[in-house]
């Protein structure tokens, strides 16, 4: 708990209070029907597809559904560290056991095949690019923040497999923690504008399918991602609103979660320093 003292603790407490009040007051407004959520289509289809709690989560509460998926990854990482990471993870207050020392693995890049030697690094870097492409296009196509996070950490893992600890993609400890924290915080706080304007947490004020948000918010959150769809029936204008931003936050979140797992098993983990 020492980390939560001082300025960090105050910021964490204020953020927790805001999110708790917003989330609980949104729950109080539930009337038994699917609430205004990310998409009108989701709302229209949810009870027709499967009128149960699962459908409500998947269709209307998709944001929270993905947030909880990420929580599962963090728990998975913690359990993995506890189960097979004995001696790898060194916490400040658990120094009773001496760290397990293992022989350093010898990665000899000269033993790599020609294809891996010359195309391993470009493939890893292109995986990073591909992950970024997936997250930026996720509002108009398949994929999303979660997939982006998995693809980018795959690039990190591929480079680590080929080059070991001297991997050319060196996500630092502070970098991974920072990315994860920005993602998690950004994900939760993106719900705030919608809550303040409409009373619904994470209401998509950019798209505003229910016509509840003022037009200035459409411009700020909607116009940067607005596309014109040219169909036979005519030209239509559509925007995913805050979904691209949520996807980016989610991608950061997943990179932080999975990246930490890889980092801990690659370099070990110590509370003291980088």
């Amino acid at each position, binding site marked *: 708990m020492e980390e939560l003292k001082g300025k960090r603790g105050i910021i964490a407490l204020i953020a927790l209070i805001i999110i708790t009040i917003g989330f609980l007051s949104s729950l109080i407004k539930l009337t038994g029907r699917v609430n205004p959520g990310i998409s009108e289509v989701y709302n229209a289809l949810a009870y027709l597809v499967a009128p149960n709690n699962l459908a409500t989560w998947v269709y209307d509460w998709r944001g929270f559904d993905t947030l909880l998926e990420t929580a599962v990854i963090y728990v998975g990482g913690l359990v993995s560290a506890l189960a097979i990471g004995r001696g790898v993870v060194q916490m400040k207050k658990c120094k009773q056991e001496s760290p397990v020392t293992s022989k350093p693995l010898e990665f000899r890049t000269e033993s790599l095949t020609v294809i891996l030697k010359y195309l391993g*690094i*470009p493939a890893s*870097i*292109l995986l*990073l*690019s*591909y992950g*970024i*492409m997936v*997250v*930026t*296009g996720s509002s*108009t*196509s398949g994929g999303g923040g979660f997939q982006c996070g998995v693809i*980018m950490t795959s690039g990190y893992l591929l480079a680590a497999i080929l080059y070991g600890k001297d*991997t*050319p*993609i*060196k*996500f*630092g400890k502070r*970098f991974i923690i920072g990315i994860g924290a920005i993602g998690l915080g950004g994900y939760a706080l993106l719900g705030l504008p919608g809550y303040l304007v409409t009373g619904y947490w994470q209401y998509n004020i950019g798209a505003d399918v229910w016509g509840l948000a003022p037009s200035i918010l459409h411009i700020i959150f909607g*116009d*940067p*991602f*607005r*596309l*014109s*769809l*040219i*169909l036979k029936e005519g*030209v239509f*204008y559509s*925007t995913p609103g805050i979904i*691209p931003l949520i996807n*980016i936050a989610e991608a950061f979140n997943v990179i932080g979660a999975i990246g930490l797992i890889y980092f801990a098993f690659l370099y070990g983990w110590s509370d003291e320093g980088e």
Partner: protein
Amino acid sequence: MVGLMKVNKMMLGEITPSLIALILGIIFGTQLDYKLTKGMIILLISFSIVASLLFGVFTFTYSIYGGYIAPGIGFSMPLITATIGIIIGKLLKG
């Protein structure tokens, strides 16, 4: 004339993802610990262009990069700008 009409239909949604990809590329590019040679940079950009064509945008959205020049072909520009961003990030970090 037709071209001008098409440009008018282009919205910010065509450009913003590319800019975001560039920024994200720079952020992650700073984490590279690899000496990028001229050959490697050419290889990365060439592969990105090929991949951006393979993962091209949906043709029902107007695209200045593809639709304007050659209707029916769409380049996924965020992939190219992400690669350029990674290279810039690496060069900035040194």
